[in-house]
């Protein structure tokens, strides 16, 4: 008898809807402070998601060991955006509403950070990204959106100065991976380089996810380039530099903090390929005394705190400090405090300007040595 079936079905839907949609309403954890760790925990960039997670996890544990934030324990919530804007927005809403986090560490990809930050701004929650270097993140004057890493324009400038003044390169090729981060970086570098009076011989974008750049490399060769700047991530930088070397191209290779990961070596398929590749990156936290102990801790657990691990760690510290000092979780309050004060972190002293960018961006040049490590280039 279909009639009944309909009504039963409809009623079922109704109940079902009311149940899921209302069950996760009131759920305010007491005696604990929740932080959302938002980033690509799955998907093509999960490697970086892992760095964020490891860093923040370590930080939370260490802080909780010494009594947490004014007695309240830190609880971390993994929020996966897979670097997709669509997911970033819904996960941001989830953090705000369902998990009722006090602050957010993340996101990673600038393309996710921007739409997500709208939500946090709206809800007045503090969001500090340890990795999104795209200027637009903080240029949209949202009071509670801050960053604990440099900006592409700062980074690009450093790179350009280095290429022109130190390497004395004449024929410079500028490449990018067509993505927010990579292209922003490449454009910033290009701009500065042009200011310094050098016009690139080639400016092109390769496709993310591809492995074969031989055609491009041959083209670079034809341009007689003596330096190649690449704005992008190690996943493409590796094969690119390998194929350059394989085709006997000796031009210098310079890139940004997107290749700060031992994955870069693997992506290139061996140390001999990455040897002598330069990159711009914040003063290596692993070298700072402030970080020594922490780094040791990581290494004990058999994990090399590379890339953004310590950035995430520091970000958690920063949020903790702000909350301790103000004894509040209101985004505006925290943000204002941070913009007025200086915080000691595992990465040294950090302080912010009105926009929420770091006052001192300590970008320096690193060079990959042949033994699977990178060291500051003096």
């Amino acid at each position, binding site marked *: 008898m279909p009639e009944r079936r309909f009504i039963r079905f409809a009623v079922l839907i109704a109940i079902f809807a009311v149940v899921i949609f209302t069950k996760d309403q009131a759920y305010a954890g007491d005696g604990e402070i929740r932080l959302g760790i938002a980033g690509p925990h799955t998907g093509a960039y999960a490697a970086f998601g892992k760095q964020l997670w490891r860093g923040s996890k370590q930080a939370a544990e260490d802080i909780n060991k010494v009594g947490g934030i004014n007695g309240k324990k830190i609880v971390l919530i993994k929020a996966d955006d897979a670097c997709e804007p669509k997911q970033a927005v819904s996960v941001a809403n989830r953090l705000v509403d369902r998990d009722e986090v006090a602050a957010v560490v993340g996101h990673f990809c600038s393309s996710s950070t921007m739409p997500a930050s709208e939500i946090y701004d709206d809800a007045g929650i503090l969001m500090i990204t340890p990795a999104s270097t795209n200027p637009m993140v903080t240029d949209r004057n949202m009071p509670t959106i801050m960053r604990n890493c440099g900006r592409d324009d700062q980074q690009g400038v450093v790179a350009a100065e280095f290429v022109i003044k130190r390497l004395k390169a004449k024929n410079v090729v500028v490449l990018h991976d067509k993505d927010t981060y990579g292209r922003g970086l490449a454009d910033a570098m290009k701009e500065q380089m042009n200011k310094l009076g050098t016009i690139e011989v080639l400016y092109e974008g390769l496709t993310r996810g591809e492995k074969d750049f031989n055609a491009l490399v041959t083209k670079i060769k034809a341009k007689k380039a003596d330096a190649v700047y690449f704005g992008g991530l190690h996943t493409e930088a590796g094969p690119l530099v390998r194929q350059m070397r394989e085709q006997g191209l000796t031009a210098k290779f310079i890139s940004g903090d997107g290749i700060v990961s031992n994955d870069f070596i693997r*992506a290139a*398929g061996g140390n001999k390929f990455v040897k002598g590749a330069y990159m711009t990156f914040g003063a290596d936290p692993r070298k700072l005394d402030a970080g020594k102990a922490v780094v040791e801790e990581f290494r004990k657990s058999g994990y090399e705190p590379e890339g953004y691990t310590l950035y995430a760690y520091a970000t958690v510290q920063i949020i903790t400090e702000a909350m301790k000092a103000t004894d509040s979780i209101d985004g505006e309050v925290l943000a204002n405090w941070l913009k007025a004060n200086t915080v000691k972190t595992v990465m040294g002293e950090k302080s912010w300007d009105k926009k929420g960018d770091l006052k001192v961006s300590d970008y320096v040049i690193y060079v990959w040595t042949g033994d699977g490590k990178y060291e500051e280039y003096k």
Partner: protein
Amino acid sequence: MEKYILGQQLVNGIVLGCTYGLIAVGYTMVYGIIGMINFAHGEVYMIAAYLAAIIIAVLTFFGINSAFLSLILTLAGTIVITSVYGWTIEKVAYKPLRNSPRLAPLISAIGISLVLQNYVQINQGAGNQGIPAVVSGAIKIGGGSNFFQITYMQAIIILAAVASMAILSIIINKTSLGRACRATQQDPKMAAILGIDTDRIISTVFIIGASMAGVAGVLVTMNYGSFDFFVGFITGIKAFTAAVLGGIGSLAGAMLGGLLLGLSESLFSGYVNTDYKDVFAFSLLVLILIFRPSGLLGRPEVEKV
């Protein structure tokens, strides 16, 4: 100088084309036999890449370092395992949908490729994986700064492509298995009536396709040295494009399409612009399909009235 650059670009294009071709075979054969786009095929290639790295690692662990030996063993091992993968995927995801609307398997294929990607990511980690250079060195043509080269690895890829094409066409055209395949392709029902175990044929085709993807996976990975759980996707799309370009269902077409795609990509990005090379590739596809609606070597479908 110029002619060496051109030479190099041609080499790049041909090598890329061969890899596309090898993978396209899988698409084209499966399509030919059950008329379905096997979107999970690219992921089999990705699995092959991992297997290659794993086997190499194990071999070096047991102290086997001779290039030749490890190449052969890796190929053999990978082919076997990917074949099992191909067979299983067919049994699990497609066989239950054999007589359902033609879009159903397409969707379950998409599901499978999601599954495989994440299955590998969860087990092997999301990070980039690498494979040490097994074969190194190159044949240089020209001298000084004016030369173009074919690395031994690239040469191997080309040879492998040619060889496997030859073997496959022999299988398809000479053996009784091949005859059964073609019969099934023409008319599954009739073939079944004539006592051909069509299920077995279909499985076989999946196995062949998967092992081709295996070969491609091993060689390409050795050539580029790195891979991650995401490589299957882009390569898959490209290979599928190649298969269609050459006329889906035709072996030679797959290879031809692959080469055409590879060359057009490398020449366009070499002499025009890298940003738009895919736009060019796809536009080329559209143009060719407008004038040859069933690909370069596909047999045109006559409007039977």
